[in-house]
């Protein structure tokens, strides 16, 4: 299996696809308004006709490049290209103001690579062990895992848990459209035969994540042309000496571990990982007062953690089919499209593809290290592309992507429906991530619930008598309680200051 995976990844076509994906991902990550999620969503339909390893390799390149590319605008414009790079701005921005933009960029790229590699190593070691544990799971346990994931995601996707839950439930409801599992009963098709096969995940993703943003640009067209002051940079090598590199080893290791841990937990993404690693490094540091004034420690903590998060987020995705964050949810859609069903048996049934994913991740990391550094002048220049030209082009590509998923115009029209749903969510401050996760987990949720209830002759006690199921449900309840209490505290604090309590947070 390993030899086949190596041969599949290290062939010229696959390597070119990874390179292409990584470079495009960096562009999408670096331009504010575009995101890693948008990149993966947009190119997912193009992979349909590809051999699975090649298709997945392209998506991996986009994922890896997209997360890392955010640091370019975070440092040069002081605007994070992706939410993952929010904490990179804290020290990357001041470094640029001090004339050290090049050094910040070099350090960011180098430690993005280091974080990615540590994350991939963790993925390779942890996922087979977790898969073995998951073999003990029955239908009731999988149902509990789905409930656990939904509650965590709902709680963490926004500060208002009710809005998160609404989004997750709407996602579950959308997954009910079409033929039901077990008995193939047709539901909620409203007499439209095109809905019998259910809604396409690609169409949902394109609508909610890409087209909604273009509509929002229409609402904000008066500020679309606003230019931000871009800093100039000079860089030799990666901007870090051997002495500094050795000094920063503990920072890189701790930040990577934080990134991996955050990535494994469902619902939390690179932005939280970066912020937590930044805070941890600041409190561990001998000079915490210098954080925020422009030191490499902050950039290293943020970039190492958000890239390590990639490997971490793939652990539950491969072993249980649970995406760790929004981009991982899109990536899961890509795996399913190519007939790779994540779960504990993935190593037996699709081993060559799993190892292919590991190798593709390593290759994408190396390409990111080399080409993000070499292409910096071009990527910096691309920040100037006018949005009023770029966004309509993306819209056309979205329609092409939706059409090519099943060669039917109905999917193109569904894109607009989901874009309007995304707009409704934005207006009413409902986070979109739980919608996608709910949609993806819908079939797992229903199939396992019905199987478990069939086995228990309709008794719900099966979910509390099986230890694994009970543990997940108890943890879900504890987590909900803790989150609600935390949110109420934050809400009260915000109210005391007379501030609005913003409930929408997105990852990607």
């Amino acid at each position, binding site marked *: 299996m390993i030899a086949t995976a190596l041969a599949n990844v290290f062939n010229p076509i696959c390597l070119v696809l990874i390179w292409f994906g990584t470079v495009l991902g960096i562009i999408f990550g670096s331009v504010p308004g575009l995101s890693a999620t948008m990149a993966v969503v947009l190119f997912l339909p193009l992979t349909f006709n590809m051999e699975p390893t090649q298709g997945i390799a392209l998506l991996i390149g986009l994922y890896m490049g997209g997360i890392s590319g955010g640091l370019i605008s975070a440092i040069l414009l002081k605007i994070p290209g992706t939410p993952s790079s929010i904490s990179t701005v804290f020290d990357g921005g001041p470094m640029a103001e001090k004339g050290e933009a090049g050094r910040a960029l070099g350090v960011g790229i180098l430690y993005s690579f280091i974080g990615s590699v540590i994350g991939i190593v963790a993925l390779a070691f942890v996922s087979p062990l977790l898969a073995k544990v998951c073999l003990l799971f029955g239908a009731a346990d999988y149902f509990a895992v789905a409930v656990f994931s939904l509650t965590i995601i709902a709680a963490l996707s926004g500060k208002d848990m009710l809005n998160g839950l*609404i989004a997750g439930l709407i996602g579950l409801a959308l997954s009910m459209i079409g033929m039901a599992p077990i008995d193939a009963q047709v539901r909620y098709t409203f007499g439209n035969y095109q809905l019998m096969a259910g809604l396409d995940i690609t169409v949902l993703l394109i609508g909610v994540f890409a087209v909604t943003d273009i509509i929002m640009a*229409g*609402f904000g*067209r008066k500020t679309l042309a606003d230019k931000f002051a871009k800093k100039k940079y000079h860089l030799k090598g990666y901007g870090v000496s051997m002495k500094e590199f050795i000094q920063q080893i503990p920072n890189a290791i701790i930040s990577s571990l934080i990134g991996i841990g955050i990535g494994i937990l469902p619902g939390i993404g690179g932005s939280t990982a970066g912020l937590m690693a930044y805070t941890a490094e600041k409190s561990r540091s001998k000079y915490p007062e210098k954080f925020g004034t422009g030191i490499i420690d902050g950039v290293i903590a943020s970039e190492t953690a958000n890239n390590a998060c990639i490997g971490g987020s793939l652990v539950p995705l491969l072993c249980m089919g649970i995406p760790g964050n929004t981009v991982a949810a899109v990536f899961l859609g890509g795996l399913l499209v190519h007939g790779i069903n994540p779960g504990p048996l993935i190593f037996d049934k699709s081993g060559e593809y799993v190892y292919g994913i590991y190798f593709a991740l390593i290759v994408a990391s190396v390409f990111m290290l080399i080409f993000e550094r070499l292409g910096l002048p071009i990527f910096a220049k691309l920040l100037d592309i006018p949005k009023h030209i770029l966004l*309509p082009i993306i819209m056309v*590509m979205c329609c092409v992507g939706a059409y*090519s998923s099943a060669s039917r115009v109905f999917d193109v029209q569904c894109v607009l429906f989901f874009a309007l749903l995304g707009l409704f969510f934005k207006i009413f401050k409902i986070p979109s991530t739980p919608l996608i996760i709910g949609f993806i987990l819908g079939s797992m949720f229903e199939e396992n619930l019905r199987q478990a209830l069939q086995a228990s002759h309709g008794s719900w006690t099966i979910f509390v008598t099986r230890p694994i199921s009970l543990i997940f449900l108890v943890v879900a309840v504890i987590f909900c309680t803790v989150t609600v209490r935390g949110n109420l505290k934050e809400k009260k604090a*915000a109210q005391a200051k007379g501030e609005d309590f913003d409930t929408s947070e997105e990852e990607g």
Partner: protein
Amino acid sequence: MTNKVRDLVCSIVMLVVGVGMFVMARDIPRKIESDVGSGYVPTFIAICIIIVAGAKLILTLISKDPTINKKVPPLGDWFGGIATVLLMLAYMMIFEKVGFIISSIVYLFVQMMLLSNSENRKPVLFAIIAVALPIAVDALFAFAIKMPLPVGLWGF
């Protein structure tokens, strides 16, 4: 619109969705005797939506939060937003009838004009991009990916 109105509208819309889903779920027949049926989970989800939306409605009504009556920041330029949605709708409606190339040329040009302002509006550049991009994408799909896009009434 205030935060309170926003949350009330959201709760009511979700309540209507939940009730609608619940009513429709009751009509889903049960095919297998030992199974709970295909209407069971939709009913469960509909009840959850009703409970969560109801809780949001009640919490909004009894809220003493001083920011609840604060105005929600305006969405922006309504003309730009609604025109973008209508333009997308028109594009998707003519996508198959007129074909990918022509519908995309029209959409791209009009959308670029709509999003640009008097300072950065360059109709000639927009026209070149609007014509070149769909032709290139169509050729890519027809010859490289072997998945032709809709050709429309005029055969291209």
